[in-house]
């Protein structure tokens, strides 16, 4: 019985410690250097925040994309404030997000939004798909998984 309790304890402990490590960047330049890689992979980068209703709504579609489409790498870039870092951590734990979450704290938006896409006015959610020098930027939310999936496929299909 004692052993069972112990096992249960470890199981619960292991479960709760499963939360992923959030990659954190204070400056866009460091983020760009580490993340925007020209390595032949297709990256689907979703800009979001815990305070953004439409972002939170579409987040599960990106998690599903991460789980179901192994041809793309999903990166969830949170624009939450540094003071909300704990809130972000517990949010992704609660939502069971396994796709890589990145916290980008650079508040000097005017200095870097153009580097993602010149057409980005600054509203979120926004989704940036790239592979090498091929890019597709969308400043809107996705209504459902099918819409996101076909959007991603429209990009990957033109690479073939």
């Amino acid at each position, binding site marked *: 019985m004692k052993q069972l309790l112990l096992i249960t304890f470890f199981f619960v402990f292991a479960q709760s410690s499963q939360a992923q490590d959030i990659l954190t960047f204070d400056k866009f330049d460091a983020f760009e250097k580490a993340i925007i890689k020209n390595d032949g992979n297709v990256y689907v980068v979703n800009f979001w925040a815990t305070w*953004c209703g439409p972002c939170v709504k579409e987040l599960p579609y990106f998690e599903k994309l991460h789980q179901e489409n192994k041809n793309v790498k999903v990166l969830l870039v949170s624009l939450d404030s540094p003071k909300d870092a704990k809130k972000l951590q517990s949010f992704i734990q609660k939502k069971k997000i396994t796709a890589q979450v990145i916290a980008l704290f650079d508040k000097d938006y*005017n200095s870097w*939004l153009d580097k993602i896409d010149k057409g980005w*006015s600054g509203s979120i959610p926004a989704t940036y798909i790239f592979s090498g020098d091929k890019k597709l930027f969308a400043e809107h939310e996705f209504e459902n998984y099918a819409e996101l999936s076909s959007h991603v496929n429209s990009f990957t299909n033109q690479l073939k």
Partner: protein
Amino acid sequence: MKAFPLLFIAISSFIIGETLVSNGYEPGDKATDFKLKSVDGKNYSMSDYKDAKGFIVVFTCNTCPFAVKYEDRVNALAKKYKPKGYVLLAINSNDPEVQPDDTYAKMQAKAKAEGFAFPYLVDEGQKIYPQYGATKTPHVFLLDKNLVVKYIGAIDDNADDASAVKERYLENAIAALDSGKDPSPSVTKAIGCSIKAKKKA
């Protein structure tokens, strides 16, 4: 064959027309005036202000955390620049059916609680924001007295912390306009919440 160039013109003008609508104004464009109801029940237009030297049009709302972070700063700007001849008009373009905390009654409550020193206008039917090309809150348009757009974008470079601001984009633009110069930069960007409109069928 003769029809081809005509068709081509028709198609390209259609595309250009679409682009203009979706992109909204750029510096140098003449902005449309409006007649919108404020939280005091009265209608406001820029043409009501005969002596104004310019207009600060702020697309904002009750609900967006970024708009809320800027509330005090917007109120301070309204108070600071009114005596200098620059009129601040805030417009809420969120459709209350999509964002229930942006109803007229809740706008009235917010304006009262925060002591807004500026008209807080309802973009009834969401007709004005697409013409300006506002996409998010807050989103600022500085116009001269002839309603020519002089500056578009952010209020400053730090939404989180007013005391850590390095660049006061909007105030610098007003200073430039006041001294007869074109603001530089005339366009800046910032993160904000998308303006909430009904989905088009």
